[in-house]
Every structure is written in C-alpha cells, then in structure tokens.
C-alpha cells in the first residue's frame, strides 16, 4: 500500500470512489427534489426536507459528503496538471473527435462549470438553510413545526427566469459529466470487461439522461406553471 497515491491508478481510484459516492448522493438529492413538482402546496417537500435536516444518519453523512466533494475536486485539478505535463510540445493538427467523445476529453472543464454552479447553489439554499433559517419562515404540517424550505426554493424559481435557466443548464452539464463519469468510475476500479463495457455505457447514458432531465425539469416546472 506504500505510495498508493503516487501512482496514477491509485489516484484515479480515489476519483472513482468519491465519484460513485457522489452519484449515490445525487440519486437521493434528485428524489427529494422531485417532491417539489408533485405537491404544489409544498407539504411533501417540506416534510422531506425536514426529515433530511433532522435525521442523525444525514448529520453523519454530511461532513463525509463534503469531504468526498473536496477530494474529488482538488484531486481532479492535480490529476489534470500531472497529465498536462506529459506532452510539452503539442500537435499542430489534431482530429480527436474521431476517436473520443467531447465530454470524455473535457471532464475537467465540465466539472469546473458544475463546481461554479455548486458555489451559487450553496449560497442560494444551503447557506440560508444552515445559517439564516429565520429568513425562510415556518410552517406547521401535521402538528410538527418546521422551516418552510419549499417557499425558499419555489420562491427562487418563481421569481427569477435567470436562476431557472442557470439551474437547468447545470442539470444538463451534470448529465454530460456523468455520462462519462458513471461507467468510467467502474472501469477504473477494475469492474469491467469485454461484456460489461457496452452495458455500463448504456446504463451511464440512461443515468445521465435521468439526472439531467430530473434536475432541469424542476425549474422548468416553476417557470411554466407560475
């Protein structure tokens, strides 16, 4: 195990497991977010948000998740730099589109755009929920008093077309990132062979489409309906 991270496969192993971990998070996140469009009174989403913010398991997972994000992001830049150094003189003419996909070659760029969104997203919601929860107001559902998270989220999308478009774009970018990231994560940990490559790539694409449409349908719903 010595110098595990000094070798590229070791470094990528870390990218891969943090990636898989974040994909699990995305599944949970998307499921809860979709509560927004299934109940316009906001009760369903508020109950879901309240469950997530009071659940002890989530409390434990939150810092681990943050760590996963930080490792994945910082590591991405380190790996990119190390790979960048390997070709001091570039080609004058390249025709890379023939042999590989655009998103596979530009995972860092797409990832960095998603990161930019993530910062805005955390300011929009996470900061308010964690540190300024008085601004949200309260609701009482079935006798339990809780923060009106629905009003915070729905308010942003109802009030601003720009934010709506931003969130939709981010959802689509995340889809592009995952369409390569999903199967690639399994490939890196060695879970792949001649039979599984095409299967994983199909699952990867389906997963990417679900995530992209799932996340972008929410702002779109509020933009059209309200």
């Amino acid at each position, binding site marked *: 195990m010595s110098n595990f991270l000094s070798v590229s*496969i070791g470094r990528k192993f870390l990218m891969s497991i943090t990636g898989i971990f974040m994909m699990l998070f995305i599944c949970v996140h998307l499921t809860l977010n979709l509560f927004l469009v299934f109940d316009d009174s906001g009760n369903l989403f508020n109950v879901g948000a309240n469950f997530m913010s009071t659940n002890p398991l989530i409390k434990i997972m939150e810092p681990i998740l943050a760590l996963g994000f930080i490792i994945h992001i910082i590591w991405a830049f380190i*790996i990119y730099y190390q*790979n960048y150094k*390997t070709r001091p003189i570039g*080609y004058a003419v390249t025709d890379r589109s023939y*042999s590989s996909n655009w998103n596979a070659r530009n995972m860092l760029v797409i990832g960095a755009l998603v990161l930019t969104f993530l910062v805005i997203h955390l300011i929009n919601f996470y900061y308010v929920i964690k540190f300024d929860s008085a601004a949200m107001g309260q609701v009482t559902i079935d006798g339990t008093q809780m923060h009106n998270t629905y009003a915070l989220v729905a308010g942003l999308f109802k009030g601003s077309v720009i934010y709506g478009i931003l969130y939709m774009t981010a959802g689509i970018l995340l889809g592009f990132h995952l369409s390569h990231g999903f199967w*690639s994560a399994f490939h890196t940990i060695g879970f792949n062979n001649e039979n599984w490559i095409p299967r994983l790539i199909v699952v990867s694409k389906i997963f990417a489409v679900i995530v992209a449409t799932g996340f972008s349908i929410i702002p779109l719903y509020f933009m059209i309906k309200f």
Partner: protein
Amino acid sequence: MESFLNLTIKVWHQKGPTEKGRFESYKVEHISTDSSFLEMMDILNEKLIKENKEPIAFDHDCREGICGMCSLYINGRPHGPDDDITTCQLYMRKFKDGETITVEPWRAAAFPVIKDLIVDRTAFDKIIAAGGYISVGTGGVPDGNNIAIPKDIAEQAMDSAACIGCGACVAACKNSSAMLFVSAKVSQLALLPQGKAESKRRAKNMVKKMEELGFGGCTNTRACEVECPKNISVSNIARLNREFLKSEFSE
C-alpha cells in the same frame, strides 16, 4: 481506379533531440493513389536528395504492419486517416488532390524526438524490462491439453498479445498515457497459467515504471482503442486496474 495526386506535405523538421524544430512544406506531384504513404515519403526524399537537400528522417521497417516500427501522426491521427492499420499500410487513395498533409512525430515527454519524425520509444522497452516477462523457464511446448486453458481465455490472451508496441496509443491519448500498451502486456501474461503467478507484481512494477518514465494516467477517453492498429481493447485497461489494485490492497 488509379489516379494521381498533387499534394503539399507539411512535415516536422528537427535536427536533434535538443534542437528546436519547425514545420517545412514540400510539394509532391503525380503521386499514384495506389502507392502507400511511405512510398510517397520515399518519392519526396528522393526528390530532396536530388536537390541536394537532407531527406526527412522517419521510422519504418517491415512495411507490412507487423513490426510496429512506423509511426507518424498524419492529419491529426496516429497512423493517419484509416482504421486498424499502421502507417505503412496507409494508402494515398485516402487523400484528396491538392490536399495539405501535416505529418508530425508522436508527441509525448516520454517519447523524445531523435530526429525529424523519429522518436525514441525505448521507454516501452524499459516498461517491459520492469516485469513484462515470466522470470522462470517454463519448459518446452507441453503436450496438447496438458494445461487446460478455456478457448475464450486463450483468444483473449492472443488478442492482447497482438500489440506491436508502436506507441499509437500514447500518441492518440490526450494524457500521453501508455495504459493500453502496459495493459496489453500485463494481460497477455496474466490470462495464462504460466504468467498468472507473477501477475500482481508484474502489474505493479510495470505501472510504476510507466509513471516514472513520464507517461500520463488514463482518463478512459478510449481514443487509444480506436487508433490502435491492432484493435487492442480497453477491457485490458480494466484488467490492469484490477491487477494493480489487487496487488496494492493485498499488501
């Protein structure tokens, strides 16, 4: 049908490993579409020699797609605009009349230019020397079916062994990674009983050597697999990852 092409060849010139290189353009006329790319290069070189100029240096040997000696990054693709071939198997019918063809050497820190289009690929030999062999004598040819090897495994090993070590995978990769080469060499041995015994150590040593020599890591773009003249599959890379991680986690 045979026809003839007039072309501009834009080629990389570099006197030596430490010299600064530059592109030079040459005109070639009346090139048959039935001639090979390297024959076209020969015609150009003959012309240059007659004009008392120095010919362009490029690697080639068997000229039948077996040896892995020829290289050349032609119009943005290793081994040029055709699939599953080496440069020596590339024909001029793949080009259009009046076209400018850009010819570059493999570009990678681990493959320094020796002269013009020739790069030093001894890095691959060093990777092999780090573990791409079986370290004990395994005797002569055993009797048929003495060692049972399932047919699909035998075929996979054979497919991996098809790698000729030309370096197109490194040239095609945006990270100049030699993972396809290393994985093919690890796989051809790891799949068979004689090579299995050392497979963990082999994967570890060869990967470490690859890193040490300045090759990049794999980001699974799969460009190598597409540009490989011998169709080596990236499933070999998954196997290498597996072997390497097994080796690391067992210590």
